[in-house]
């Protein structure tokens, strides 16, 4: 337990600091009360509104651990939300609608995975195609309109409650735990990390990089699908233009805040989830504390720069090595050292 806590310590401390800061400006931030059989309060709001980024961050963590990146997740959210909404409005019923939405996400992931793993196209290039074209596909499904529906069963996934807790919170926490268990209780995590750190050596040890790469992009597509369904269900309509817009950047930011290096290797889903919460807390906190919301972007920019400095192989090889040892994260190695 101790090494895991130590790994999460920077993110936990940051989150606590951010929460403390927000609470200082807005003392009732942490107060949660039960009204109409559901929990309400700013903290609950953070957890709920952070759901899409948290979900995307789960899949993105795995992709980034393999040295890749998935720019298409925002567009995939739009596609899957649109597909589910289309199924609901066409009268297919709840289960088929969910299946269609999730299936669309898996297909999108498969497409990305094939481009990266089989055709050998750089991840940033390969996923750009779907990022640009995907929103068009989503609009095609909704025929350019905001496809609204009134299906309580489906809306439950966005606006409902499970034991007084908003459903999106339950879903992202469950998804995070499920993926966390999947990669850590099986050997997937180890194998993903090994291809992210050293693909030639892993291949010589018999690791099947191609299948693993496809799998992580499928996982990312699936997470995006869940996020898309939640957002669509919440607003009871599929808005192909705006669902998931720029969330890929927030998801990448969450993963990077979580200490997973963009250069691949050691990853932690829990830390990425904390990263997503940090982003959302800042977001909500700025609104609550009465700052103009435009501060948000500037703060995000500052965060990125701070993380870049911490991860930079050039600026502080000693520091990043020490951090790596302390936290067991994959801070990039000094390139010179690697060739020596």
């Amino acid at each position, binding site marked *: 337990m101790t090494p895991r806590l130590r790994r999460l310590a920077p993110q936990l401390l940051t989150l606590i600091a951010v929460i403390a800061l927000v609470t200082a400006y807005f003392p009732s931030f942490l107060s949660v009360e039960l009204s109409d059989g559901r929990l309400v309060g700013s903290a609950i709001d953070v957890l709920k509104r952070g759901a899409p980024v948290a979900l995307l961050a789960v899949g993105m963590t795995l992709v980034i651990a393999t040295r890749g990146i998935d720019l298409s997740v925002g567009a995939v959210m739009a596609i899957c939300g649109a597909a589910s909404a289309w199924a609901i409005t066409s009268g297919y019923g709840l289960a088929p609608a969910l299946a269609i939405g999730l299936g669309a996400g898996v297909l999108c992931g498969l497409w990305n995975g094939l481009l990266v793993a089989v055709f050998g196209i750089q991840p940033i290039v390969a996923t750009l195609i779907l990022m640009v074209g995907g929103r068009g596909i989503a609009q095609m499904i909704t025929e350019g309109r905001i496809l609204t529906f009134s299906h309580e069963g489906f809306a439950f996934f966005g606006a409902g409650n499970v034991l007084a807790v908003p459903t999106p919170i339950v879903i992202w926490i469950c998804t995070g735990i499920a993926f966390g268990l999947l990669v850590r209780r099986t050997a997937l995590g180890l194998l993903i990390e090994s291809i992210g750190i050293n693909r030639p050596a892993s291949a010589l040890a018999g690791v099947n990089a191609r299948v693993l790469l496809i799998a992580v992009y499928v996982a990312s597509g699936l997470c995006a699908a869940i996020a898309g369904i939640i957002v669509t269900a919440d607003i009871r309509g599929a808005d192909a233009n705006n669902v998931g817009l720029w969330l890929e950047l927030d998801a990448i930011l969450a993963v990077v805040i979580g200490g997973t290096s963009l250069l691949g290797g050691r990853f932690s889903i829990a830390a990425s989830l904390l990263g997503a919460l940090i982003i959302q807390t800042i977001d909500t906190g700025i609104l609550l504390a009465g700052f103009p919301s435009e501060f948000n*972007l500037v703060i995000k920019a500052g965060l990125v720069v701070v993380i870049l400095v911490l991860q930079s192989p050039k600026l502080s090889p000693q520091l990043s090595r020490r951090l790596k040892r302390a936290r067991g994260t994959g801070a990039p190695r000094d390139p010179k050292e690697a060739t020596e």
Partner: protein
Amino acid sequence: MNARILPLYATIVIFLIAYLICYIQFPAMLSTRVVGNLLTDNAYLGIVAVGMTVVILSGGIDLSVGSVIAFSGVFVAVMLRDTDLHPLIVFALLLGITTGFGAAMGALIHGLAMPAFIVTLAGMFLARGAAYMLTIDSVPIDHAFYDVLDAYYRMPGGGRLTLIGVVMLVTVFAGMIIAHRTRFGTSVFALGGGEHTARLMGVSVGLTTVKIYAFSGFMAGLSGIVFSVYTGSGYPLATVGTELTAIATVVIGGTILTGGSGYVFGTLIGVLTMGLIQTYIVFDGSLSSWWTKIVIGLLLLLFILLQKGLLTLGQRQRSSPT
């Protein structure tokens, strides 16, 4: 034939075929009116895409340009509203700011040895945030000088060749000179061919990187000015996602997204191809706007696969003993 010019030919052929199809269906599309509008409507995109071409040729990427364009529009509008400065002075100030901003990102990319992708992501947030801080409303520009900037030349056939359209063409020409006819341009290609080798051949990698992103920042600023002329206002929510469109036009223009090969002229054709798709959809009337995105996505796929194919073909040719 040089393999690296193939994508450019493909770009031109696709554009001509597309135009031919448009013409067969709607003969009116072959008029100076449409051509004039094509240039005017895409002027800001063409300018920013020239900067993006140079960045991509060097093997980098600049995600900040959309935000920088929005910032520029807002900066100009707010300055003209709140001060008595002449627009030309405001423009000079603005270009100084955006060029410096680009240079700073270039310095960070080189200094921290981190991917351009994430550094310019921070730049994207920062520029958009700065635009919001200036104003959150759309600020109209009503300065007498802007009426001058709206000037156009009426071409035979009734089409309008606007000043901003001409600025775009001049920018593309300047970009072609800089990328293909200067030592700096050769260094950009060298960086895109391989940073390590470029350094061995005597390229000052740090300085060149700074210059490249400064150039992109300058172009984004210029594009912002043109956009403010085009819309007559400054709005912090404008041009969201323009960086993606710019990247797409560069790739459709035949430049390899991994750097080292491409033509600025191709980017112009890429911009016009995009404009053509939109014009076609407008002419057709029954087609929906989402087809633009899908067609662009398909074109992206086509070009990326084409380039990958050429690359593997070239490697196979070279490695097989002859």
